[in-house]
């Protein structure tokens, strides 16, 4: 790595590898949270707050994924986040059909990584 001696680069790589492992082990919990929010999407009384919470979780995922070797998961999370921005800026009642689809695609990707471990 630029501007670093080999020892420090090795220490950094080892540190980042540990962070990647911790990210993969956090996926189960993140999947559960998304599933719970997905159920709330079905209820018109809670769909908007569920959308916003899904967006917040997707935003966090989008932020971290590229740094832990999960660009596809990051791209799916970003797509979900952007779509929710569009949906909540639009008319009521919200149309969350595509939110559901994007969320399912993201969940599939997350589950594959859990299974991969």
């Amino acid at each position: 790595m630029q501007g670093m001696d080999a020892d420090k680069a090795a220490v950094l790589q080892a540190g980042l590898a540990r962070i990647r492992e911790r990210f993969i082990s956090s996926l189960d919990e993140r999947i559960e949270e998304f599933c719970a929010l997905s159920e709330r999407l079905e209820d018109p009384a809670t769909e908007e707050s569920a959308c916003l919470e899904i967006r917040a979780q997707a935003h966090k995922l989008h932020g971290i994924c590229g740094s832990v070797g999960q660009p596809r998961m990051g791209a799916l999370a970003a797509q979900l986040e952007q779509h929710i921005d569009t949906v909540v800026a639009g008319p009521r009642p919200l149309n969350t059909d595509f939110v559901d689809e994007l969320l399912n695609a993201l969940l599939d990707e997350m589950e594959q990584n859990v299974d991969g471990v």
Partner: protein
Amino acid sequence: MKILAVDDDELIREILSATLEAHGYKDVTLAESGEDALQKIQASPTPFDGFMFDIQMPGMDGTELCQHVRQMEHYKNSPVIMITAMNNKEYVDRAFMAGATDYVTKPFDTTELMTRIRLADRLQSEAQKAAAAQAAAPAAAAQVPKPAFKEPVTVKEVRGVVKSAALDNYVMLMLEQKQFAMGAFAIRVPELATVHAGSSTEEFTYVVTDVAEVISDTLVGAQAFLSYLGGGVFVCVGAKNKLPSADSMHDEFVMMLNDPDLVYCEDVATGFSAQIGEVAAPKLFEKRGDLRFLDRAVEKLNEAANSGGRASGGRSAFAA
């Protein structure tokens, strides 16, 4: 360099900490929220030299935190690097308006991240040396001659006004992300030369600030940023389709400049006029991060003013 890094994601905090430490920045404090960051700033026995704030956080977000930090006397000019996944231009605009000086995008590119940190480190070191020299010889500092007219002065607390370096960083981020078609235009208020010649540095800065405020008011709705380059010249940047044309803004702008409630100089009695250049935009073949269109904005101003070489060479002609 003592750094405070704030992000609500624990893993991001750890990545930042590991990366900074591996590059020799060992004095890094981590905070998980805006509220936590403020507590850590208050509790710190020695001040921080620079900050990294995630923009989107639950509770107090990075922009609000930046506003709080800028209100602290010690941190008025400290480097504040915003961390952004860059999915919402509004967040980034608000962050620069709140006083952010630079940004890094998630996911982190280590080389880019360290370039930003080293730049902040260098600027902070230079500022500290200058402050130390001034403290060591206050009498000498008091006798420092008035900065030349072509030098920029710092305009504070005007909506949308940022330092030239922060403006460059903002433009680079927007070009990188291809958020929208950008444009820039420049404005010169020639009579600022007379004001500069006949008043103190402090008074001149007040008048430049008044003029900046008038420009900012004129650009309301355009979501534009502006910076004072020195030499009586301001450059304004924003979405190309929202920037006003020179013709459409000239008359109202001059009228506002000559309203003593808006622009007032105690030392020099003068009326104000304005030269406004046409909008310049990045060219298709120019690479991302190429800021030459800002120079072209100044060149268009010079063409408009038909100054016969009064000022030329783009923004560098006004650089400190």
